């Protein structure tokens, strides 16, 4: 005797958020049943394991049928097959597109290609996220990337509207798309201490300040590429390190402002030229795609690590960068204030965000 068929269909589609999460996490039906039992759902009800199995199977089937719609969330609101109240639809979409920070950290900046997809089992083994869930998350990244790639207008807004995601999640996806598009290196050992949210913050800064869409004309251009003109203009900053007078003048201005305000003043004074060279060099090299990819590794190697080895506190870094940026305005022969601010504004916030253990 065996159950040949067992279905339950409600006029309003019944979905248990807990089971949905298990499904999203890539649990098999049996594992999900086990997890639910351990979760104590049976204690509160007078049900048996059979009932739980039947319920889990029903819900898994429902989710599988819904999955197609979740791939283009706007369809979910207009489809007729499942009657799902709007707030539940929002929950389904949001959860479907939510990703594991551990997983995203592994693929951030990688090309969203078949090659990467092949590595997913390694990532799964490394992160402990099931392969099924890795695939869903990877496919989500790819899908969002594909859709917004061809769209004009602000990136976050595009994602939010097309995938009906919350503002927070849309921003995260914007970061993923931005990283994938510019292929920023994030996997190096020295960058391992940075989590996804650090990168997402930096991505936000770059999107908001360094892309074409950042300045004006939000409609015309895309947010995913850096502003080429701006990158070209960055070359002009070289004068800050090549003109010896300017460099000395800059140093003395910064040192005057810092004196007595920090314990690591001596180190700052000693390292000023090195640090300044590093930051300006990063700026001037950004016209090379290769150097754009190394942007974060450069920030860490050339600025954050030296500071850290001199035991600067986060407040010291902040103080130093603030005065470093502002003092340049007083340099009478330095003419590139606008570019400088646009550059240093982002560098400053990125380094603040990244300066932790």
């Amino acid at each position, binding site marked *: 005797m065996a159950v040949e068929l067992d279905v339950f269909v409600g006029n309003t589609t*019944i979905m248990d958020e807990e089971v949905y999460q298990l499904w999203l996490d890539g649990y098999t039906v049996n594992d999900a049943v086990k997890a639910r039992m351990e979760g104590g759902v049976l204690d509160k009800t007078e049900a048996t394991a059979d009932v739980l199995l039947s319920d889990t199977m029903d819900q898994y089937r429902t989710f599988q049928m819904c999955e197609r719609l979740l791939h283009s969330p706007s369809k979910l609101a207009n489809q*007729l097959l499942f009657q799902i109240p709007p707030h539940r639809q929002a929950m389904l979409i949001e959860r479907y597109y939510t990703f594991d920070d551990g997983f995203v950290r592994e693929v951030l900046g990688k090309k969203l290609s078949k090659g990467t997809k092949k590595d997913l089992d390694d990532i799964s083994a490394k992160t402990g996220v099931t392969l099924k869930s890795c695939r869903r998350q990877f496919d989500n990244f790819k899908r969002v990337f594909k859709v917004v790639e061809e769209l004009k207008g602000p990136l976050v807004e595009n994602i939010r509207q097309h995938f009906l995601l919350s503002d927070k999640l849309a921003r995260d996806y914007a970061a993923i798309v931005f990283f994938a598009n510019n292929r920023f290196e994030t996997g190096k050992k020295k960058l391992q201490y940075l989590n996804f949210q650090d990168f997402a913050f930096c991505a936000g800064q770059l999107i908001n300040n360094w892309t074409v869409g950042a300045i004006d004309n939000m409609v015309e251009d895309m947010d995913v590429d850096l502003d080429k003109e701006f990158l070209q203009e960055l070359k002009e900053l070289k004068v800050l390190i090549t003109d010896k007078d300017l460099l000395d003048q800059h140093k003395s201005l910064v040192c005057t402002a810092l004196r007595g305000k920090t314990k690591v003043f001596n180190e700052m004074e000693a390292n000023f030229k090195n640090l300044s060279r590093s930051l300006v060099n990063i700026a001037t090299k950004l016209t090379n795609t290769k150097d754009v990819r190394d942007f974060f590794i450069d920030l860490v190697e050339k600025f954050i690590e030296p500071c850290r080895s001199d035991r600067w506190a986060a407040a010291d870094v902040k103080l130093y960068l603030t005065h470093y940026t502002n003092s340049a305005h007083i340099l009478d022969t330095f003419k590139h204030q606008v570019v400088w601010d646009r550059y240093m504004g982002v560098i400053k916030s990125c380094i603040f965000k990244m300066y932790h253990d």
Partner: protein
Amino acid sequence: MVGKTWPIRSTEIMPGKLKAKIVAGRHLPVMDRASDLTDAFVEVKFGTTTFKTDVYPKSLNPQWNSEWFKFEVDDEDLQDEPLQITVLDHDTYSANDAIGKVYIDIDPLLCTEAASVISGWFPIYDTIHGIRGEINVLVKVELFNDLNRFRQSSCGVKFFCTTSIPRSYRAVIVHGFVEELVVNEDPEYQWIDRIRTPRASNEARQRLISLMSGELQRKIGLKVLEMGGNAVVGYLQCFDLEGESGLVVRAIGTACTLEKLSSGGGPICCPHPNTAPASNACNSPSKDGKEPVFGEDLPLSSGPPTPFRSLPTSSSSPPPFSPSKPCSRQSSSSDTDLSLTPKTGMGSGGSAGKEAGPLKTLLRQQTQTALEQREFPFFTLTSFPPGFLVHVGGVVSARSVKLLDRIHNPDEPETRDAWWEEIRQEIKSHAKALGCHAVVGYSESTSICEEVCILSASGTAAILNPRYMREGCLDFGSTDHRFEEPSPPACGFCHIPYDELNMPFPAQLAYCYQCRRQKVPDVLFTTIDLPPEGAVTGKGCLIQARLCRLKKKAQGEVNATAISNLLPFMEYELHTQLMNKLKLRSMNALFGLRIQISVGENMLLGLASATGVYLTALPAPGGIQIAGKTPGDLNNEQHISTIQKRINDTIAKSKELYQINPPELTEEGVGSPIPEPRQRSRLFRSHSESSDELSELDLSHGKKDAFVLEIDDTDAVEDIHSLLTDASPPSGFYSCNTETMPGIYNWTSGVQMFTSVRVLRLSNTNLTNQGLNKIFTDLCENLLKSFYFKLRSMIPCCLCHLNFTVAVPEEELVQVSVTAVAMTFDKDQNQEKPLEKSIIKGGSETEEQLQFPLELCADSSSTSSQPSSKISVSSLEHCSPLPDARSRSLRSSRSFGGSSVTTVKMTPLSFLPGTRIIKYLGIINMFFIRETTSLREEGGVSGFLHSFIAEVFAMVRAHVAALGGNAVVSYSMKDCVLMENPNKNQAQCLINVSGDAVICVRETDQEQMTSMMNSGQTCSTTDGAT
């Protein structure tokens, strides 16, 4: 560019013009792999006329925005034919590929009171691929005014699936039974089926059934017009897939003359079925007091008392298997010969008819005359306007086994007509034997396996008040005859209709525990809902009897005889189980009893479902006592005492669980002597093998005061154990198979309708009856457990209208399908129905009583208990406490966030709690076939059926929304026939659903409307409420 027309039908009679416009499509499937796009166009067909839209190239969201396609048609076609819309993919080089179809029943447009336009998104359905995108369509009908000239049609007759007088209507006259049956060759069995594709075959079948349904409805409508009515209530349409011998579509219903209530109708609301019509009749204060009135001119209420009419009696008549002789065709038409002598299959019941003695009054005779002039005084209604039902006798049922391959002329309806005629005559005579002149809660069903067909009919014998009949009306000669006549007491329906001195069968009678004047039976079984005026103690619960009986595989007559011989035993055993389970729950009455016997090749399955209650008017049920047959055996006695203890514990637990605390009887102060409440009642197990003995046993039920269950063999022990295995619902849950749960009145608006199907494969070939019983019982119990688990977030909640259907689709398969609705209620509110309310009959409501339901509504939706302080809200959504159960009115949803999908609620009940139906838009009657040749890829048979059921729901909702509705009431899934062949990776399923499309508004909205439109009435309402 303009669509082409090929008008073939002559248009000399043209009572109407059908207009259709194809607006757009969306989410179409990719038909061209190369471009990932589709070049879609649409064919619109009605009758033999076809129009086409232009091809909209390279789009999955085509905007055809076509002209109006106009069909000039006669009324007969309008009723019979569906509008057929086919979406195709244009292909320059090869044949155009069909994407899918939409059938639109335009019947709702033919009623002036129903929908005026059909407009909306319909799922494009393909029988192989399921739903493939959606299409936006506009349909209108222009009717000529002098439609009545065309007598072939019955345009304008309203149909309702609802088995009560629809809310917002008043029954002026209840005319009675209408039936019709049409037969056609099943396309699946035509020779051409061998050469056509499965898709073509399925579509031919869908179309045929759609046509036959239309024809059937039209013919029934004609009968209604002949009777002078304007509506069919309790319309029940069924399909019999007879296989080789044909495809039968048959329907029964109750013809009525309905009158639409003014929109400012009384504010009586949801939880009380059928109070609305009554309250609306009360435009002036009622003359009737609150006390029950025993009019001298209503001696019928002093009629003979009696207990229920036990079920198996119907089968105590010789099994009505009509052998294969062609001469069994009795009449050549569906009209019944009035002179047919009723069979006296009811044992001793023959004498209790209308000649029951001098107690008969003029009125009763008039009623009887009125009813007996009818061919069949049957009513498919299950709940009635107050005062309609005078007495209830008990359940009457009849079954008959027929051989389909012996139908003389399979293409004609005569033989089947004669079969049903025979069954109905038997039902009628059973009712007569119970001293009743009418049968209410009447239904018919079939079970087919190969060439064997079991026809079943059942109902509740009753005596009705004649005032709703035409003749009765004349007697009163008044437009508002409700006030001309005193009302019977609320407990009246419990009083026996037959003569106490000349009882149709031995039974225990007692004086009514409510009025103390009339006799009542100790137990009452009915197929109807609990009348609104009926008082119950505590709450009710679902009671099921389940039974499997193995039979040898056989052919033809041998098989039919074997089945016929088994049927009486099955009915008897089911009845015994019901009785025992009722007593175990300390209850004394069953409502909504439905006994289904399903036939398979090697077994018969019996499932009886009912809702048990403790009727206050009936005596307390006795306990159950166990006795061994061999006294002295110590082991045995110990065993018996253990079982006895378990039984007593169960009864005690039930009393607590269902809050059954009947008031202690104070025997003094009661005029008539009350018999001692029996502590024990008699229950029998049958060991007999002959039907003669059976009937004797059966009828002696209740005769002796002695013990109940004899343990004489292992079977008996098993049976007792199985009695005790039924688990009660977990706390927070109630369940019933009637419309609502007796004892729960404060429904909130959380509603979740669901359908669940389970199929078991019996792999063990050496199964015994006992083993099968266990499997079957577990199957049903596990389904219930699943429901309780899945719906746990709705607690406190009640599963209402639990409708179980069993089938034996293949030799080793058992299929159980359930459709029900879970409804939330407010636990904290006073659960007790006010006592006065239960006594007062509906027709005499005063302002004070009107207040009661108002308060209920107010409390269910807001904290204020004063209706006058309620805030008007324009959408249903606000009234829902459950996030999942949200719903919105049409208006608000159309403007919602870009979504074009209207939330459509569905329920098997005739109402939605907390809302009021303001318009009935027409009947929904849909038949779908789905087939797959890639079963594994679709998630196996479960995945296949899961998506099919979801698709059916979606199509029902879409049609309702297109009619402008936001809910389906009285929804039912009448057929779910699943055939599978996993080895071939194939499956096919047929589903038939029906219901009434309605517009409902929140109760509070309605009150606002009322106050604007009908100040007078609202004044009194508000006064009463504040």
